């Protein structure tokens, strides 16, 4: 199977014309004032997400991925451009977007079931009903049997699944994830990828994944946006034409390898720019 890589040069193709897009990110730019002047973290980024699609944004460290995550999730203001879900402009945290964070974010004082039921508790749902719904999502992420355990009794991968179940229980239109498996080892990451694929298959959940892991992005996505190193722009959009339903077995296929190689060739240049920039900063910071 041939990898299909769209070159991405014009802004017209940045915003798919599909009118059925559930989320649109239009001309987002984010600048920060630093002691060394104004830093453009994200520069004129536009894309659209189709319903049920799994879209990944991949880029080297320092490409503004996390800034983009916070802007789309409504946690960061002061940007230029517009984010909209189903036509409605997002100006802050919004019920249509559910976020899963990179850092471990379960509530240590709540059991698994109470963690997952948390958003339902906020919405005022009766206890019996919310426990039942929470159990459904706990089962979905494969943690049945652990309902009454505390996060401290679970592994890192299990805790991330609790966070994911908690966000899914919120029933967002878009699941927005920021490198949720970054802190986990490669095997756990692949197996959790399977779980995510299975969940997405079942729920038809529209998902936007921010990641720096190429394997993870290719394993899970329908499309991948490759970003440049600072300022973060979209360099290329890659359609992943791998069959679904997928499992982690796909990583051994030839087509998978080709996608990984193509994305790496795009990213390598950006990652090297990032690395040399970092070294320069460190040299400047510690003059010898």
């Amino acid at each position, binding site marked *: 199977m041939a990898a299909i890589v769209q070159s991405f040069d014009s802004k017209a193709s940045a915003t798919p014309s599909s009118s059925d897009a559930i989320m649109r990110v239009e001309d987002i730019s984010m600048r920060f004032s630093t002691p060394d002047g104004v830093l453009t973290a994200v520069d004129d980024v536009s894309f659209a997400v189709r319903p049920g699609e799994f879209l990944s944004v991949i880029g080297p460290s320092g490409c503004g991925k996390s800034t983009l995550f916070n802007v789309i999730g409504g946690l960061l203001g002061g940007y230029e451009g517009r984010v909209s879900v189903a036509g409605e402009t997002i100006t802050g945290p919004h019920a249509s977007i559910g*976020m899963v964070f990179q850092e471990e974010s379960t*509530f240590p*004082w709540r*059991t698994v079931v109470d963690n997952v039921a948390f958003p339902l508790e906020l919405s005022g749902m009766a206890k019996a009903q919310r426990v039942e719904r929470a159990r459904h999502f706990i089962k979905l992420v494969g943690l049945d049997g652990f309902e009454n355990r505390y996060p401290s009794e679970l592994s890192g991968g299990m805790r991330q699944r609790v966070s994911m179940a908690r966000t899914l229980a*919120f029933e967002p239109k878009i699941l927005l994830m920021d490198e949720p498996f970054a802190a986990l080892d490669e095997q756990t990451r692949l197996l959790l990828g399977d779980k995510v694929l299975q969940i997405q298959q079942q729920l038809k959940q529209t998902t936007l994944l921010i990641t720096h892991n190429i394997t993870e992005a290719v394993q899970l996505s329908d499309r991948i946006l490759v970003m440049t190193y600072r300022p973060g722009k979209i360099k290329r959009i890659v359609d992943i034409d791998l069959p679904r339903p997928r499992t982690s077995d796909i990583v051994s296929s030839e087509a998978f390898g080709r996608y990984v190689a193509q994305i790496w060739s795009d990213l390598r240049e950006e990652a090297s720019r990032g690395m040399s920039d970092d070294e320069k900063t460190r040299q400047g910071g510690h003059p010898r």
Partner: protein
Amino acid sequence: MKADAMARSRVIPPLIGFGSLALSVLAFEVLIRLNVISKFIVPPPSEIAMSFERIIVEEHVLQRFVATGSEVLTAAAMLTVVGVSIGVLLFQVDILRRATETWVAAMAAAPIVLMYPLFLVIFGRSPWTIIMIGFVAALPPVILKTIEGLAGTRRVLINVGRSFSMSESQLFWKIMLPSALPTIFVGLRLGLIFALINIVGVEFLINFGGLGQLINELAERYDLAGTYAAICFVILVSIIVFALTERIERWLTPAN
């Protein structure tokens, strides 16, 4: 049994604890009887044990125990309500916190107990003088640990709350306070130590109230065995208050 299995056993650690205590008591008994330690400074433990009946029947130590215990519990309740509230206020009003945090920390080292004449003037020779000194002396650790606990709430947990569109008040009650509770309890435990020391100290100083006054009277009569027996009751108050705090803490923070 291996060392780690012994450490995990429910029976062995307390057994070792009581065993060491019993051994030390026995060692004192022997050293005093052999005149290595003068019995005019430390009475033999057997004599202290025998004086218990006397101080219970003649000195009404149980009523005094209840008096001191209720003073400590009143101070503890006030500490929890007022201390934690001041901590929350200072955490939320940044300028107040910056303006007063160093003072509060300095107050922790101040010998508040020496201000007892002032408290006597304000509250009279009543249990309230004792309670208020205990309360004021114990405030700093509660305030400081409340601020520390709230400020230590992990950013990502607040972001989770914000992503669920929680209001500021929901963020506080449902995320920040539960996250800060273990640290707040550290402050409360420290505060209770301060309170108990000060309460018994003031009772002793102003010769009023519970166990402190009894210790004062017995010491003045040079009834050393009785004095040590009364001190055992102070330790008992401490054990009860701490067991109670631990129980409340376990109930409020079951995950720990």
